């Protein structure tokens, strides 16, 4: 079966982000960008499905500016077969991304679409669920284990109370949680090979999708800073402060 994986280019998780002085957003010039960590997990899962003989082809999709091609190359180096890049310099909100993905699904006809549970820049946690809704497909979000059959998949999900297992009818959308797998590093030969794999480029208009944002960002600010406190010298002093100064125990 064919598997589609969505990969978003985001500010690297190690970067300490800075809010722009004019409050219009976050500084992204000269900042290290990477594949969204949850999407690395998605690519890894797809590659394992292919290695296990369950998937036949892996198509990676990324949406955004020209540099998304680098993100796609990373996915190709990890083992995806080809890439699709929806080029857009405008902001793409989850609903727009889901609509674009729906149009790509219509062309590609995958049996499984894997997305990250959340992008670590907008922290929306929406796109996979929206895509499943628009397609009328089943969804298994926050997956920590996927057992793929031919007509159904059994997915273990990380929920607030612990773990939950659901059986979902294929075709389906799955979103990844952190413990689904540990993504591999691409080897040098695979990075070289990835350069020759095809990437298709298209515009949102080619897919007939209106991507006009529905949410206007009025301002972006830094959260109130916590003041660092004091160091205590001993456990006894700590307990005393908690009882008599902070009065929280």
């Amino acid at each position: 079966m064919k598997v589609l994986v969505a990969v978003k280019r985001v500010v690297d998780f190690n970067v300490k982000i800075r809010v722009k002085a004019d409050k219009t957003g976050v500084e992204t010039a000269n900042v290290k960008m990477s594949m969204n960590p949850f999407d690395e997990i998605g690519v890894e899962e797809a590659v394992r499905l292919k290695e296990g003989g369950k998937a036949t082809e892996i198509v990676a999709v990324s949406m955004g500016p020209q540099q998304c091609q680098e993100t796609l190359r990373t996915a190709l180096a990890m083992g995806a077969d080809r890439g699709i890049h929806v080029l857009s310099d405008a902001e793409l909100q989850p609903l727009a991304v889901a609509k674009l993905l729906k149009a790509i699904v219509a062309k590609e006809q995958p049996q499984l679409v894997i997305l990250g549970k959340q992008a670590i820049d907008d922290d929306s946690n929406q796109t996979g669920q929206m895509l499943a809704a628009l397609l009328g497909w089943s969804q298994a979000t926050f997956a920590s284990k996927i057992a793929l059959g031919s007509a159904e998949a059994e997915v273990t999900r990380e929920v607030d109370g612990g773990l939950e297992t659901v059986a979902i009818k294929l075709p389906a959308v799955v979103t990844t949680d952190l413990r689904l797998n540990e993504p591999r590093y691409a080897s040098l030969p695979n990075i070289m090979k990835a350069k020759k794999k095809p990437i298709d480029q298209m515009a949102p208009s080619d897919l007939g999708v209106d991507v006009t944002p529905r949410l206007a960002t009025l301002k972006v600010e830094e959260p109130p800073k916590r003041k660092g406190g004091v160091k205590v010298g001993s456990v006894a002093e700590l307990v005393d402060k908690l009882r008599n100064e902070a009065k929280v125990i």
Partner: protein
Amino acid sequence: MSVLVIAEHDNAALKPATLNAVTAASKLGGDVAVLVAGQGCGAVADAATKIAGVAKVLVADAAPYAHPLAENLTPLVVGLAQGYGHVVATATTFGKNLMPRVAALLDVQQISEVMAIEAPDTFVRPIYAGNALATVKSSDKIKVMTVRATAFEAAATGSGSAAREDVAATADAGLSRFVGQALSKMERPELTAARIIISGGRAMQNGENFKMLEEVADRLGAAVGASRAAVDAGYVPNDYQVGQTGKIVAPELYIAVGISGAIQHLAGMKDSKVIVAINKDEEAPIFTVADYGLVADLSKAIPELKAELDRTKP
């Protein structure tokens, strides 16, 4: 316009986080209705009628809702949503799973993890693990949103007297099935509801050592949490994880033990009222947010803490 709150429950009891969603809903203007969809959920519906500030409780009691499957709940919520200006749920795994599916079918852009309501169409939400706060204005007709429980007080219970109304159930979507669950036994308060939390990190070294934290927790009536590193290493179950991609907590007191203070962890706990850090590395970033820092080896400090709590017990 009125507001529809989607209740989270397990057919036996209402999840406390729903009460925070009701408070957020009451700040949006208009009557607040609560939807209780489940199977054999009469007791939950009764409890919902007693939440202060709730005008109406809609009850859909039917087999497709026995488990909170998004595929089955979505058509119900979408059908009801047309009559409301806002549809609200808490940003728990339940709300996060369901609400975007609802929003997409209503063709609206959901607003996730709302922390403050500036106007009925303008909200503050965290981005980049809470390292920035965005104020966003929605142009959609119906606002579908999840709210961060720790940012809103829980609505009072017991005093309300909402009207109860049965609503027609939708059919099973036939897309998904509940197979089973492995829920953590909760002898201690739930993380998101606890007044005190003590969390352990990678430095706990194994699950056995977490027992030391539990002994301290028992003396404080605290819940036990963990960093991602401790969960990944298998010391404790996934539902202990605090952080950007785990639970967001804001207790009166948060004690971080052997946790370095990565931004993804801070994202989940930096709104706690008082933070204590116990770490043997005095340079650990966790100390930059801690009100009280103790530079110490946890294998010594935690037993000492337990003994000191006993010794000074009022």
